[in-house]
């Protein structure tokens, strides 16, 4: 009898912890949704000169050994053009923006203009980096407006790599404090051009608690 009683107590604690974690992730989704609507969508829409839609694909708790949860087969084999920005201050988070090469060229066309026909790689890197910088700033501003937290951002780091390597480098940046991270993936797309841009927001779970408090 004692065994069953003890087990039911353990299960009850486990269920409560799971429910609490699930509630936190749901709340983070709602908060993130409000940040994106208030600042990021207007910013991206202005930059692309077209309406933009988005979808929060998933928010999940992630162990550092479980990167596979974030990588589709398609993303495994295709190199991505990516920008990573670290945000520090009252909150710490990392924001990775990534897209396929074709989409990065289309984005550069939009940002710089079609008049420059032979855009150098350097010009594309600069324009994509600036885009990542501005969109991350939009998230920081939304957080600041909503919570009063103050944050600064690093210079944007640029890379062309497989998503697995991009994630490894991003997650390494956070894993000195925690083995469990919260990852939110969001896809933005231009309604007219069809250009797609992915965002991955990574936080320590303690930071998430501060954000949704």
């Amino acid at each position, binding site marked *: 009898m004692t065994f069953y009683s003890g087990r039911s107590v353990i299960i009850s604690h486990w269920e409560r912890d799971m429910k609490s974690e699930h509630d936190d992730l749901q709340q983070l989704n709602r908060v993130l949704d409000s940040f994106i609507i208030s600042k990021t969508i207007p910013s991206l829409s202005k930059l692309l000169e077209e309406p933009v839609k988005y979808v929060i694909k998933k928010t999940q708790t992630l162990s*550092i*050994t479980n990167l596979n949860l974030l990588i589709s087969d398609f993303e495994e084999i295709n190199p991505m053009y*990516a920008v990573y920005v670290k945000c520090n201050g009252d909150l710490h988070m990392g924001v990775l923006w990534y897209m396929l090469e074709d989409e990065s060229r289309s984005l550069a066309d939009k940002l710089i203009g079609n008049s420059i026909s032979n855009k150098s790689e350097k010009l594309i890197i600069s324009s994509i980096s600036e885009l990542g910088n501005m969109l991350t700033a939009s998230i920081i501003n939304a957080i600041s407006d909503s919570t009063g937290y103050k944050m600064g951002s690093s210079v944007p*780091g*640029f*890379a062309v790599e*497989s998503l697995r*390597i*991009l994630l490894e480098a991003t997650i390494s940046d956070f894993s000195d404090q925690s083995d469990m991270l919260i990852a939110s993936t969001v896809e933005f797309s231009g309604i007219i051009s069809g250009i797609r841009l992915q965002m991955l927001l990574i936080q320590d779970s303690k930071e998430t608690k501060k954000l949704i408090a």
Partner: protein
Amino acid sequence: MNCVVEIKMGELAVVNDQTDELKTFVGSCVAMCLFDIKTRIAAMAHVMLPKKIHSKQNTMNDEAGKFADVAFTCMINKMNEMGADKKRIRAKIAGGAAIFSHESENGLFNVGTRNIAAIKQILKENGIPLISEDVGENFGRWVIFNPHSGEMTIVSNLKKTQKTI
């Protein structure tokens, strides 16, 4: 059939001659391999960070490879338990790339460089010869280590290169 052990991020494995390959994929992280060619006992760690600084930092069993210092101690102890002789142990390393870069600031995303330096320092302090390396640059690598031959093969899908060290 080939027995291949794949090491995930922050993990390590110690194997004997029943294993044909130890395999991992690194960017800014470093694949640290130790091996005793006589007993063919070998270890590979997927090192993410140079040093365990806070005692509260977790190093669960499945993430023993995460910190260079913790990983090294764990690898050496397990290899010794399995019959390797520390005097014969040699090291090879690969990875530690600077994946993200910025045209005007080089020091911001340099965990790869710090990982390499930390591992070299640990090997030096413990008298383990580092006999070959493929480190730095800005791209990810598949690292495949053969415990039978002591050869490390490094493949970059993006650069379409392969080399053995």
